[in-house]
């Protein structure tokens, strides 16, 4: 059979798009490697986060805020389709600042972004130490905490239950999951595409290349261009602790079940998901500098995952000029943008035209034009 859409890559980005297509009635195949493939979701802190994102790229700031505005409804759909809690909360997110210098750096960033032409007015604001103490009555803050920036619209979610909910929703909508396949080739096939894997060939009218670090190999086969490199993220989780941190922070978040999640690192170019004691210790020290009581918490696990990154850190969306119907989608913020990927992006792919508000996220921006 020929599918309407084949999505290559069953991670957070690909599965969101595949779910969005299937939920809109398209016959959709999700071609994926399997549980051993690198999954950015495994190194995700679970923040649905707008703070400081999109400096120099107002379209990214707006796309992020748009996704966040869609998230509450999307989260309800995910919880209902999967029949399980995905840990979604909209309580805002804090970015803690240690020392006046960090606070000043954040203040300057917010100021530059506030003045950025074309960007949406951001509700992110600075809170001083006293305000922070009032927001976190059960926490004794470390001496060096000067304050924080607070984005009231931001949310958090548990990334792995979310990914599972996307799969469940995709299958419930009639999507066909084709795991344990490594795609080696994409070719044109009449008016559509043939996706050739080590197991079989899948035929589809449209193809979405959303396989993260696999994109640079596959995308050029259908005239797409998306430079991506790996970034390693290390994470720590503690034992379950009594609730103390009601608002998630960047780098330290207590999930409702009580676990405190610390991290992640951002290590450019590292493609092996291994931890290092030095990095784990640095992250743990910073978390303990924010909340000294964490020094007494037991660490249950430390691990690493690999996430895709573009040269400027902003997402890439493109429809192929030479092979219309072939799309690429990649970003570093698969959780934050999940609602936009499952919603307006999937809808646009089915309609055959990417949304105007992601036009600036086209990979043409990486072309160097010589005079």
């Amino acid at each position: 059979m020929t599918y309407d859409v084949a999505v290559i890559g069953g991670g957070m980005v690909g599965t969101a798009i595949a779910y969005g297509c299937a939920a809109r009635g398209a016959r959709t195949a999700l071609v994926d490697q399997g549980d051993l493939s690198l999954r950015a979701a495994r190194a995700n802190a679970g923040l649905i986060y707008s703070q400081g994102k999109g400096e120099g790229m107002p379209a990214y700031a707006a796309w992020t805020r748009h996704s966040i505005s869609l998230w509450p409804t999307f989260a309800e759909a995910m919880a209902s389709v999967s029949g399980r809690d995905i840990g979604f909360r909209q309580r805002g997110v804090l970015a803690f600042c240690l020392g006046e210098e960090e606070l000043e750096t954040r203040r300057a960033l917010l100021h530059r972004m506030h003045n950025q032409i074309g960007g949406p007015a951001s509700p992110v604001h600075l809170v001083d130490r006293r305000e922070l103490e009032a927001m976190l009555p059960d926490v004794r803050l470390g001496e060096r905490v000067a304050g924080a920036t607070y984005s009231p619209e931001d949310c958090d979610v548990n990334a792995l239950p979310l990914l599972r909910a996307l799969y469940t929703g995709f299958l419930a909508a009639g999507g066909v999951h084709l795991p344990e396949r490594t795609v080696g080739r994409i070719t044109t096939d009449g008016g559509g595409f043939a996706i050739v894997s080590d197991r079989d060939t899948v035929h589809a009218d449209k193809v979405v290349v959303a396989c993260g670090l696999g994109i640079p190999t596959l995308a050029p086969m259908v005239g797409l261009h998306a430079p991506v490199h790996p970034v390693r993220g290390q994470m720590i989780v503690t034992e379950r602790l009594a609730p103390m941190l009601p608002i998630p922070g960047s780098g330290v978040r207590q999930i409702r079940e009580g676990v405190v999640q610390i991290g992640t690192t951002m290590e450019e170019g590292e493609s092996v998901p291994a931890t290092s004691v030095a990095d784990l210790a640095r992250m743990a020290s910073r978390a303990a500098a924010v909340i000294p009581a964490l020094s007494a918490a037991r660490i249950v696990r430390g691990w690493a995952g690999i996430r895709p990154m573009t040269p400027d850190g902003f997402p890439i969306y493109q429809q192929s000029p030479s092979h219309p119907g072939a799309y690429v989608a990649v970003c570093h913020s698969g959780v934050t943008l999940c609602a936009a990927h499952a919603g307006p992006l999937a809808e646009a792919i089915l309609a055959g035209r990417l949304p105007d508000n992601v036009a600036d996220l086209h990979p043409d921006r990486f072309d160097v034009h010589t005079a």
Partner: protein
Amino acid sequence: MFTRPDNGSLTLTFEGRTIAAREGDSVAAALLANGIQVTRQTPVSGASRGPFCMMGACFECLAVVDGRASVQTCMTAVRDGMRVERQNGARGLGTGA
């Protein structure tokens, strides 16, 4: 569930009740040998939990031991006079536990 002919000469208390243990028992083993299967209520659903893997991996057997919360009883050797209590909910960091 388990019985053994010689339950040992050490004593510890579980929820105030005195129970016997052998030298070399883990706390979890001593509790199971005395028919005690529930050491805590999970902070997530409130459901009862008790020793399961007996080798430090599953974290199901947590209890309050001598006032210290979230102790893995399967990884803790019994000592004479030890006080063990069920743990309800997660450990707090502020209480010195």
